[in-house]
């Protein structure tokens, strides 16, 4: 693990090595889908998905337009971000005002690449046809929600650099982050038998997250936290396994991690069901939230890791039976 972090730091420190080139003779970037995108001139008019916009703004690149998955003031991942001066093209997943976007004359669209759906944010299968036309306005690039959030963040740093930004600020953020990872790893090492389950109860169903498609959960697993892999992910939407509330006690972890995007509503949904009394971790109060699919910057990740480390230090590894 330390080796990977070292390699990543070297890569970023070297600057133009690897994934991006900027400067006077055109623009090129290897995007999350593995393709290299080029242009004759460095793009200046950028429309970005809200989370990508957040990370680009960290490096001083301000997009001209942005589209979000939920009302910006309520989105967990966008707290404290100033979208002043940026045209908001939508605040609901799958709905983008493409006409307004076209008026901005973008030359680059930026959003996460989702390997499970083979699409960028804003172009996935469930998006309205009209909204999906944003992909026709300009090339779409972005870092991949693949095996690790670290790759995602470094991918965006790479993109920012290719667009001419100075990414020096990331060096200090990275070292604080690495310190937080070390603390996290120490905490999980002290409790080797600790198991966790990432869930999102909704209405009458109990959804269990599949770590394979949640990079932050893959990171936790690689740092020593045993996040349970559900045994039968839904076929058509493999991010989750849908479990009936009757079977909500199927997995018995030591701690529960609730999807923080609709917390505490999802916890209340579970609480209203009698089966909640059969989930040992819930009865013992051993639960907290997990930053679900919105981490895009080192400061956010550091904050979340510090919170989770404190939680793990207090956790009891003998509650569940997994």
């Amino acid at each position, binding site marked *: 693990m330390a080796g990977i972090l070292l390699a990543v730091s070297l890569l970023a420190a070297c600057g133009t090595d690897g994934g991006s080139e900027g400067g006077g003779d055109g623009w090129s970037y290897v995007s999350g889908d593995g393709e290299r995108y080029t242009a004759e001139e460095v793009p200046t008019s950028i429309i970005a998905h809200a989370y990508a916009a957040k990370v680009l703004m960290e490096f001083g690149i301000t997009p001209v337009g942005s589209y979000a998955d939920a009302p910006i003031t309520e989105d967990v991942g966008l707290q404290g971000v100033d979208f002043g001066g940026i045209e908001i093209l939508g605040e609901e997943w799958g709905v983008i005002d493409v006409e307004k976007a076209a008026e901005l004359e973008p030359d680059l669209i930026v959003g996460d690449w989702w390997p499970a759906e083979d699409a960028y944010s804003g172009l996935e299968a469930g998006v309205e046809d009209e909204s999906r036309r944003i992909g026709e306005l300009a090339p779409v690039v972005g870092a991949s929600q693949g095996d690790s959030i670290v790759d995602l963040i470094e991918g965006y740093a790479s993109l920012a650099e290719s667009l001419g930004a100075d990414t020096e600020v990331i060096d200090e953020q990275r070292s604080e982050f690495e310190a937080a990872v070390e603390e996290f790893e120490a905490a999980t090492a002290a409790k080797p038998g600790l198991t966790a389950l990432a869930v999102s109860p909704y209405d009458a169903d109990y959804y269990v997250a599949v770590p394979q498609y949640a990079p932050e959960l893959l990171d936790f697993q690689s740092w020593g936290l045993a996040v349970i892999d559900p045994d039968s992910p839904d076929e058509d939407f493999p991010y989750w396994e849908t479990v*009936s509330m009757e*079977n909500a006690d199927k997995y018995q972890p030591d701690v529960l991690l609730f999807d923080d995007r609709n917390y505490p509503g999802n916890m209340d949904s579970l609480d209203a069901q009698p089966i909640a009394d059969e989930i040992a971790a819930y009865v013992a109060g051993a639960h907290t939230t997990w930053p679900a699919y919105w981490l895009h910057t080192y400061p956010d990740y550091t904050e979340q890791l510090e919170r989770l480390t404190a939680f793990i230090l207090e956790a009891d590894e003998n509650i569940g039976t997994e």
Partner: protein
Amino acid sequence: MTLTRRRSTTSVRHRPALWMWLLVAIGALALVSVASVALGAREVGLRTVVQAFLDPTPAADVTVIREMRLPRTLLGIAVGAALALGGALLQGVARNPLADTGVMGINSGAAAAVAISVLAIGYSPAGTQVWYAFAGAAVATVFVYSVASVGREGATPVKLALAGAAVTALCASVTSAIVLSDPDALDQLRMWQVGSLGGRNFSVFNQLVPYFLAGTVAALFTGRALNMLSLGDDLARSFGLRVPSTRALVFTIVTVLCGAATAACGPIVFVGLMIPHLARVITGPDYRWILAFSLVLGPILLLICDILGRVVAPSGEIPVGVVVGIIGAPVFVALVRYRQVVKV
């Protein structure tokens, strides 16, 4: 031997035969109820089910059976009975074979109330949402009835149908407007509007059971009045029936029954429309028997659809509103084609 002793008309059934069929139906209901408690997404053996009631030791299986499937089954019986009775009453008082809670504005009124509550107050738990839905259904029905009553003739079937359609359209527009502008409302309503028994436990059941009981008892007593009304307003009046107040009373009972049912599970269509016709095939035009059979057949249909929804899906459950629609449509078509039942 008197010549007038024996009368044979095709529409009068022998009473002993009907009592027998009613017992058969009640037996079927008991069987389906047991199945509803025994079957579901969680595999629980029949012995465990029986032991859960006779000698319960705390365990996850027992919790699922006693606190999740049992209230769900009871609610299914209550809602099935309420919707079927409500449909029979509506068809009788409106003299409209297509009368159903959807046509009379109850479903759309409840939906509009839920949407408004999410817009105004935000997310509310199922226990409170129930009251908003109830209020919405009540307001919509009162409105339909008042609009239809304007004029000398009062609420004639034609005016009821028109008023119902108008109020349904109005409520649907209000709901759409709210849902298109507020993603939270869309989220809440999306799940509620399908009509589902999932996730409802004793808290919802206990809150609404007084209304179900009162409405059912009252409904069963309206058989004679409905028989008279079905002969036409003038003839009914000549029998001494006070037509306007009887209609108002029947409408109130429908509001209580169907309002409670919609509040509990969201709008479920078809049950109120189809079950009275099914009952009529067995019983003939006597409303006292139609109501008795509706009371039993409604829950049977709803529970069967709920059980199917629970066991058929590979993961999760199919809401009962969806299954009723899928099963109900072909059955109703068959009913209409092969029997001359669409005569109220």
